[in-house]
């Protein structure tokens, strides 16, 4: 397994190596040593590449991941897995703001807590947070699923479109146009599937509440102006 040590190797060499893996190559697993909070680690990965980052990363780790499996054995700075297309990103520690922002697909698992705006503008990504999430999470979420085993901060799901939110703990407050919704069998089934994919054990889907869009702000109505 190639090991790229960011203490001695420029970031450019790491990303360039990950972008230039030839079809049929045997070296599909990479280890990154000494990330020391570097930004843009393992961004733009496409294809079934495994990357293990041994330490904490800065901004935008695994940005635009498309098919890779990227594990951070530490914590992640802002915008981890932003705009992910497909694949899997696992953060063993905590994640800062904007985790999974605008993600279109794939699975983001955060084993610690996530800060504010987790899943902002999500567009199809699935996010599972083992801990708590901060305020304004899933703001303008368009599609995909956000699963939170802990608590959610203020203004969850503000201006939500069709993203589905599942929270096991408390929600400090709901954002504009976000309401609690009935948990139907298909939601329980989807939730069970996501929990399993995220390696969550001993937690039942029935322990969660579902939140979604009231769809009152979809078309502008002057009578709803106070909601903004």
């Amino acid at each position, binding site marked *: 397994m190639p090991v790229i040590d960011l203490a001695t190797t420029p970031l450019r060499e790491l990303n360039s190596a990950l972008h230039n893996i030839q079809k049929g190559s045997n070296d599909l697993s990479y280890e990154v040593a000494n990330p020391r909070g570097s930004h843009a680690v393992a961004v733009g990965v496409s294809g079934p590449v495994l990357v293990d980052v041994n330490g904490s990363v800065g901004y935008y780790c695994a940005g635009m991941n498309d098919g890779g499996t990227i594990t951070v054995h530490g914590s992640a700075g*802002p915008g981890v897995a932003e705009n992910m297309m497909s694949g899997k990103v696992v953060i063993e520690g905590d994640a800062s703001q*904007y985790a999974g922002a605008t993600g279109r697909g794939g699975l983001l698992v955060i084993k610690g807590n996530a800060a504010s705006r987790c899943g902002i503008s999500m567009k199809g990504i699935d996010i599972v947070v083992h801990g708590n999430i901060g305020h304004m999470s899933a*703001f303008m979420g368009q599609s995909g699923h956000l699963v939170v085993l802990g608590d959610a901060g203020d203004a969850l799901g503000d201006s939500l*479109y069709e993203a589905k939110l599942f929270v096991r703990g408390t929600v400090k407050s709901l954002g504009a146009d976000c309401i609690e919704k009935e948990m139907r069998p298909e939601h329980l089934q989807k939730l069970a599937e996501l929990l399993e994919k995220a390696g969550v054990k001993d937690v039942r889907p029935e322990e969660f509440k579902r939140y979604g869009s009231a769809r009152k702000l979809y078309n502008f109505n002057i009578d709803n102006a106070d909601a903004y």
Partner: protein
Amino acid sequence: MSYHNPYTPPRKSATFDDYTLAEIRRAAATGIYDIRGAGTKRKVPHFDDLLFLGASISRYPLEGYREKCDTSVVLGTRFAKKPIHLKIPVSIAGMSFGALSGPAKEALGRGATASGTSTTTGDGGMTDEERGHSQTLVYQYLPSRYGMNPTDLRRADAIEVVVGQGAKPGGGGMLLGQKISDRVANMRNLPKGIDQRSACRHPDWTGPDDLEIKILELREITDWEKPIYVKVGGARPYYDTALAVKAGADVVVLDGMQGGTAATQDVFIENVGMPTLACIRPAVQALQDLGMHRKVQLVISGGIRSGADVAKALALGADAVAIGTAALVAIGDNDPHWEEEYQKLGTTAGAYDDWHEGKDPAGITTQDPELMKRLDPIAAGRRLANYLKVMTLEAQTIARACGKNHLHNLEPEDLCALTMEAAAMAQVPLAGTSWYPGKGAF
């Protein structure tokens, strides 16, 4: 002798003029602000308020039809491995598929390609047709991130991080339900028919320090090949330009308040932002102060209509300009040919700005399949190419008269101003004087 009070004509208020009164009544009747397309309609100091001096005893001209006047420009020379080479310094500004019809985007691509210049995506992602018909395509990176993906990022020729636009600095995109067709909804991951109100801030960065890291990420994803533009609205051009340079931009795109939009509140269009003329010198000053003029290129947009405007923007220090509204007019927007239909919509050719309603008789600002059939993208592309050719010839004509063998050799010294306002904004002398407001004591 009896005294008759002489007739005095009714006097209307300058403050409460007919348009203002009508707007008050409209607001009272509907309870909603006016939404429209295009840029500001108010009169602001503009390039019309500047003149070129031409040649004289101390400045000799170039022969109009014999001596070369170069028009080429290279954008993205600072960091990008593959800078953009344009034959002419007039590019097509960002306009979305969604706001514009497919044939309109195709026409823009065809016209730009035939002219050796670039076109730009908008708040809706890149279509295959647009990529196919545009030899040089700039891909916008917007707060909404609609349609954003690494494949399109890599097949673009340049990336434009949009912070703001001149029509609405501080506002996000807007596309109302009438134009959210199946295809547009699918590209933007939105339910069909909803009113799309894009975010005005990027979801994963705020401020210049974050922007620097965001640009690093985009460069890493695209292996440092693509020039990265940063587009700002005309708000604080000195600082915005300086901060964009500090964040690592290859190109700064600066859009004044005459720049158009597909849709936003009229109050926003008319009351927020600075005129294009007022934006250029502070931006150039910022580049010069940083030693980056001509190293980070400056593209100016907002109300560019003719080769004279191009020449004036370049003389003030821009490297290139971008056109949006003028390009739409060239392909057929607001054409008097459709006057009867404009009348039915309660407007007239030249004033039609309800682009958000998707009923454009010219088939440009619509997603209606029947209306868009009216626009022949090949013929419209040819009209745009003709127009770009005329603009270029006009700019060359002026440059040669000023003795310049490249449009970039035009300089502020070639200009004078007709008004005090224009003199102050452009920092060129009031005609017949050697003074402009702010230069020396009154």
